[in-house]
C-alpha cells in the first residue's frame, strides 16, 4: 500500500528493476503451478505404472501376490518362458504381418485419396470430412461391422467379390487360419485410411503452389510434377505418418479381440492379445509384463530408426 503513495518519479530506478524482476520470478512460479496438477496425475497414473510394469517383468506376479504384494524376484525367468513359447513367436510374426500389410495399404490408399481431395472440387469438404468417420467409430463397432461383412455365406464382401467374378467360391475370411489375419487386416485398413489421408493432406497443402506454377511454366506435365516436386517434398511427412502408423498398428488390440479373439488356433493372436491373455486370462502378470516390455523395446527401436532418418533428412 505504501508503494502507491510515492509518486513514480521519486521511486529509485534500481528498486523498479528489482521489483520487476521479482514479479517476473513470481509469474514463472505461478506458471509452474499451472503445470503441476496434470504432471502429478501423469506421474501417478502413467509413469509410475510403466515403471512397475518393467519391474513386474522380472518378478513372479500371480493372484496371491497381486493382493499381498508378495512378488518374488525371478530374474529373467519370465523372458525365458515367453521367448521359448511357440505361441509368442507366432504372435511376433502375426504382429509384423498385420502391421506392415496394414501400413502399406493404408498409406498407399491414403496418399491417393489425399492427392484427389487436395484438388479444388465441388463437395470436396464433405468428402474429406465424411471419410474421417471411419476413424472415429468405436473400434468395437467397426469390428462388429466387419465381422458381419466378412461372414463367408451371408457377408456382403464375399457376395461383391463373387458378383464381379474375382472369386467363385466364398472365402472363409474368419475361420481359416491362414486367411483370418487378412480378414482383420482389411478391417484395419478401412480404419486407418482416414488417419493417413488427413495427415498427408495437411502435408500436401503446405507445399507452396508457386513451385507447381514454376514447373508448369517450364513445361512439366502433371506426372513429372508429382515425381519431382510432390514426392520429394512429402518425404518427411510420409516418414512421420509411417512411424505413427507403425506404433498405432502394432498396439491394435480391440479390433482383433472383437473380430477373431485371436483365433482360429492363435492365427491372429498378435502381441497385445498374447500379453492380455497371459496377464488377464492366465493371471501371470509377470510374463504378461515381459511381453509388454518386449513390445516397448520394438517400438523404441522403430522410433530410433525414425529419428536417425529424420536427422539425415534435415542435414541432407
Amino acid at each position: 500500500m505504501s508503494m502507491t503513495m510515492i509518486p513514480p518519479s521519486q521511486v529509485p530506478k534500481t528498486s523498479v528493476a528489482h521489483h520487476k524482476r521479482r514479479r517476473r520470478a513470481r509469474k514463472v512460479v505461478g506458471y509452474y503451478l499451472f503445470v503441476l496438477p496434470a504432471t502429478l496425475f501423469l506421474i501417478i497414473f502413467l509413469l509410475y505404472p510403466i515403471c512397475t510394469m518393467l519391474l513386474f517383468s522380472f518378478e513372479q506376479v500371480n493372484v496371491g501376490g497381486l493382493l499381498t504384494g508378495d512378488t518374488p524376484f525371478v530374474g529373467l525367468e519370465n523372458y525365458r518362458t515367453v521367448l521359448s513359447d511357440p505361441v509368442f513367436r507366432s504372435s511376433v510374426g502375426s504382429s509384423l504381418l498385420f502391421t506392415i500389410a496394414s501400413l502399406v495399404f493404408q498409406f498407399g490408399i491414403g496418399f491417393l485419396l489425399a492427392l484427389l481431395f487436395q484438388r479444388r472440387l465441388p463437395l470436396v469438404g464433405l468428402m474429406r470430412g465424411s471419410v474421417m468417420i471411419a476413424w472415429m467409430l468405436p473400434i468395437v463397432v467397426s469390428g462388429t461391422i466387419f465381422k458381419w461383412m466378412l461372414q463367408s455365406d451371408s457377408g456382403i464382401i464375399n457376395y461383391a467379390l463373387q458378383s464381379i467374378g474375382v472369386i467363385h467360391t466364398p472365402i472363409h475370411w474368419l475361420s481359416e487360419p491362414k486367411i483370418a489375419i487378412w480378414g482383420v487386416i482389411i478391417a484395419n485398413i478401412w480404419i486407418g485410411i482416414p488417419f493417413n489421408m488427413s495427415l498427408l493432406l495437411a502435408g500436401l497443402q503446405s507445399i507452396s503452389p508457386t513451385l507447381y506454377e514454376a514447373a508448369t511454366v517450364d513445361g512439366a506435365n502433371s506426372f513429372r510434377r508429382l515425381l519431382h516436386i510432390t514426392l520429394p517434398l512429402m518425404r518427411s511427412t510420409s516418414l512421420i505418418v509411417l512411424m505413427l502408423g507403425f506404433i498405432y498398428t502394432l498396439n491394435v488390440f480391440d479390433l482383433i479381440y472383437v473380430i477373431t479373439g485371436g483365433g482360429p488356433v492363435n492365427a491372429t493372436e498378435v502381441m497385445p492379445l498374447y500379453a492380455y491373455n497371459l496377464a488377464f486370462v492366465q493371471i501371470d502378470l509377470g510374463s504378461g509384463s515381459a511381453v509388454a516390455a518386449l513390445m516397448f523395446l520394438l517400438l523404441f527401436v522403430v522410433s530410433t530408426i525414425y529419428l536417425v532418418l529424420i536427422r539425415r533428412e534435415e542435414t541432407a
Partner: protein
Amino acid sequence: MSTQKKFSQTLLLTVLGLFCMAIMLFPLYWVIVSSLKNTVELFRSPPTLFPQQIDWSPYIANFVQNQDMLHYMGNSLQIAVGTMLLSLLLGTPIAYGLARLPVGGKNVFLLAFLVAQMFPSIMLALPLFVMFTRIGLMNTLLAVILAITTRTLPFAVLVLRPFFLSLPRELEDAAFIDGCGLWGSFYRIILPLSRPGLLTVAVLTFLMGWSDFLFPLAFISDDTKRPLTLGLYKFISEYGTRWNDLMAVSTVAALPIILVFMFAQRYVTSGLVAGAVKD
C-alpha cells in the same frame, strides 16, 4: 488447357471422389441398413441394398423390452463425461502453462507427451490393474476414467497449446495492469477466447471415453458397471448369429459419433490432425 477439357476433368474427379467417399461410408451404411431388416431378408441372396420392409423389432427388443443396453449406455455416458471433464480440468492449465513458460524444461514436457501418447494401452492396463486391485478401485467407473484420461490428457495438451500460443500476450498484460492475477486472467480472458479449442478437446475426449474398450474390459467384471462397448462385446459372444440385434446395438453405439460428424465436424477434424503431428 481448354475450359471444356478442364470442366470434364473436374467432373470426372468429382465423381471419383464421391465414389471413394461412398466406399468409405459403405460399412456404416450397411450396419444401419442391416439393423432395419427382418431375419429373412437379412440372409437373403442377393442381398437387398435397401430394406424392403423396415423392421424396428431389434431396437424395441434391445432398448425398450430389455433395459440392459440402456443401463450400459448410462455407464458409457458417465465414463465419457468423466473423461472429458478430467481431461479439460487437468489439460487446460498445463497447456496454458506450457504455452507461456520460458523455455526451461518445456521441450522435455512436450516430448514426454508425444511419447506418452504412443504407449500401448495394454502396457498400461497391466500395472494399473495391479494398482487398482490394491487400492480397491476395481469394478468402478472411476478406475476406467482415470485410465482413459492418461491417454486423453497428452492429446488434450497437444491440441490446446497451439491455441494458447496464438493468443496475443498483450491481452494478459492488460489484465495484469487491471489487477487480475495469473489465474484470474486465465479464467476471465484466456478461457473464453479459446472456446473453439476447448470445444474440440471436449468433443474428442468425450468420444474417446465413449469408445474405449480395453480399460473397461480389464477393470470391470460387474455387469451393472459395464459400458456399451463391453455390452456389445458380451452380446457378440452370447448371440453370435443374431446379426440384426447386433447391428441395432452397433448403430446406437455409433450414434454419438454420427451426430458429432453431422453437427460439429469442423472442430473434430482439425483437432485430430493437430493432436497427431504438432510438436
